[in-house]
């Protein structure tokens, strides 16, 4: 599954992450600060343009490499992991996949140069039920007038634009949702207050408000009524990155726990020599490797053009639960010190990784997606 280039790419990203990302991870969490100074080095590493074609200024890489990048960044800093994952797979990708040439020419080169794009899907009343979108886009001549609110939007304050879904008809049907590109500076576009989150505190999460936001039809993405379908396709890919993020955080938890267990002595010997700790570490490693294989397998399917919707739900579901368990175990292995925001990252990882079971579809929704897909294949045979 992994080729030489993947191993080399991992080494490159790992070295970069340790040098440029890891040193800030603790302080951005404590200060609840979005690290704008990281954007330049991330851009130079090609991490802002992983899904953008070369003709639009990108450096596209295969999905396994993409997963490796998100994994290695998250291994040292979950906040950076989610910022990158959201920009690439939720912000840039819908334009790559569903945008027209003008839209690509206008936005993708900027995205590739490090200007963030956010994904405006979730609303206060439409979480798991994304089809319940309340935001409205009303036709006015050649224009659209958009009203509504989006919440929990990653990079909301820093992104130059958002890919927002809105209802283009009064009917409650999913086929009446359309997506648009909305730019931050436009009249009627405002960013709400920053969310105070349990974890990923170095990522920028806020609400977006559209108040009589008038845009020309050229900012509509794809056909009218295709927004919901586009969004589902986007999320299929996005789930791979949340899986990769959980995987990286889990690996970070294991790195921390293993080192601590080998150093810390109780009853006259390092605690790694106790069977209870060994078993925990063995389970962490086994589950992490399982999650990794699922994520790479799903990445490969995606690149090979094989349907991967169920697989992306499965790898996201599994990796996020593995991540939570690994972080929980790491904190337990560290004992008292693990509960403090002290020298070890275990506590931060534990708070960060919880998001992976929630964002881009809760685990409950993933199970729904998986079961429905199985049911569908049963009916087809």
């Amino acid at each position, binding site marked *: 599954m992994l080729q030489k280039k993947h191993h080399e790419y991992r080494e490159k990203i790992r070295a970069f992450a340790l040098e440029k990302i890891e040193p800030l991870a603790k302080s951005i969490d*404590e200060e609840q600060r979005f690290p704008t100074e990281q954007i330049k080095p991330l851009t130079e590493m090609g991490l802002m343009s992983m899904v953008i074609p070369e003709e639009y200024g990108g450096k596209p890489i295969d999905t396994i490499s993409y997963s490796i990048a998100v994994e290695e960044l998250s291994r040292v800093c979950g906040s950076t992991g989610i910022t990158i994952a959201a920009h690439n797979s939720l912000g840039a990708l819908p334009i790559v996949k569903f945008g027209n040439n003008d839209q690509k020419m206008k936005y993708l080169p900027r995205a590739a140069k490090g200007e963030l794009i956010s994904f405006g899907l*979730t609303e206060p*009343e*439409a*979480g*798991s*039920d994304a089809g*319940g979108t309340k935001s409205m886009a009303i036709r006015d001549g050649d224009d659209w007038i958009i009203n509504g609110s989006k*919440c*929990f939007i990653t990079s909301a304050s820093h992104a130059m634009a958002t890919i927002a879904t809105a209802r283009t008809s009064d009917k409650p049907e999913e086929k009446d949702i359309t997506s648009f590109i909305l730019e931050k500076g436009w009249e009627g576009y405002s960013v709400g207050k920053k*969310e*105070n*989150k*349990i*974890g990923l505190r170095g990522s920028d999460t806020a609400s977006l408000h559209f108040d009589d936001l008038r845009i020309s039809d050229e900012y509509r993405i794809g056909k009218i009524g295709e927004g919901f379908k586009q969004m589902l396709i986007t999320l299929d890919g996005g789930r791979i990155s949340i899986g990769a993020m959980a995987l990286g955080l889990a690996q970070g938890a294991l790195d921390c726990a293993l080192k601590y267990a080998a150093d810390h*002595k*109780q*009853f*006259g010997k390092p605690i790694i020599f*106790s069977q*209870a*700790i060994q078993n925990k570490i063995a389970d962490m490693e086994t589950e992490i490797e399982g999650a990794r294989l699922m994520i790479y397998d799903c990445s490969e399917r995606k690149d090979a053009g094989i349907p991967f919707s169920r697989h992306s739900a499965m790898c996201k579901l599994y990796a996020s639960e593995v991540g*939570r368990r690994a972080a*929980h175990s790491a*904190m*337990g292995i560290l*004992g*008292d010190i*693990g*509960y*403090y*925001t*002290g020298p070890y990252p275990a*506590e931060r990882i*534990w*708070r960060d990784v*919880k*998001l992976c*079971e*929630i*964002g881009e579809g*809760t*685990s*409950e929704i993933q*199970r729904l997606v998986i079961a429905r897909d199985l049911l569908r294949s049963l009916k087809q045979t």
Partner: protein
Amino acid sequence: MDFNLSEEDLEFKQMAREFAEKRLYPQAEEMDEKAETPKELIKECGELGYLGFTVPEEYGGMGFSSTAFAGVLEEFSAACAGFGILLSVHCSLCCEIIKLFGDKDTKKKYLPPMATGEKIGSYCLTEPNMGTDLSAIATTAENKGDHYLLNGTKTFVTNGGLASVLIVFAKTNPDEGHRGLSCFIVDKDLDGISVGKPETKCGIKASDTREINFADVKVPKENLLGEEGNGFRMAVTILNSGRIGVSFQAIGIAQSALNEAIKYSKERKQFGKPLAAFQALQFKMAEMATRIDASRLLAYRAAQLKDAGKPCHRETSMSKLFCSQTANFVANEAVQIHGGYGYMKEYAVERYFRDARVTEIYEGTSEAHLMVISKDLLKD
């Protein structure tokens, strides 16, 4: 064994609940945010008798049982687990150890001001290089005739900044393991004691946690609690109350998390119906409630055994192990039921999730309790 609580115990629980609703729930979020407990809250609790709840009446306390106190701890922790642990450390560890092992003069001197909250207690056991293994304690107390010379560092000391009475475990014979351990009551205003700045924690932020350093502290001879070399036995005895305390803290957190989940699942609509109408979430909540009930039964059994003066190491360990696991399970699921909102600080489940985590760590990690339970099972 009868797990039915007496009418009196239920009344105490109800009173504690009313106090919590009036004074704790409204400011729990702020206490977490500011990482402190308001002094007047401690004062009020002292006036109402909560800080001397299990201290005998002759020493200025209320003289109630651990079982009665359990209800108080649960209700207080349900509102603010950080405040719950302040209370638990003060009462279940510090007052308790003086009550059990102090001589008459010691009790007379320390218990009355502690019972009213004029003096808060703090329990100094853990050290930078010692957690589960008590024989590895490196703090020393050298016998100098009329006093002991105390040297060493204690970490993760709950109430460290608030306390004026420190219960300190130190080696009077450093060459011995367990048997070299003794316990002292140390007044915090003695020369040579320095208290670190508050530690930042994942949760139970309202509780005050510090490092305390002892450098050539002269502790008067009469402040040795019990006998020299008896510290280990005392620590082990007192662990029972500590475990019962954390059990009920965990139950309180879990119950609150479940209450929030039930409330939210009825209010929040997705796909045209309340979340509570979805079987996957119904079953989650059923599982949460079942584990909470099982926890409560284990914890009350432990408390009642202790009150009856019966051996209860295994039972208190089982209770602490299971209750803390329950709290973590329930709080995690409660966050899950809240979805994105559960990840945000506006919703209380976020705090419960962080608070629950510590219950599996302090007063003995889960591994330490598995050691206690298995040792008891496998003894001849």
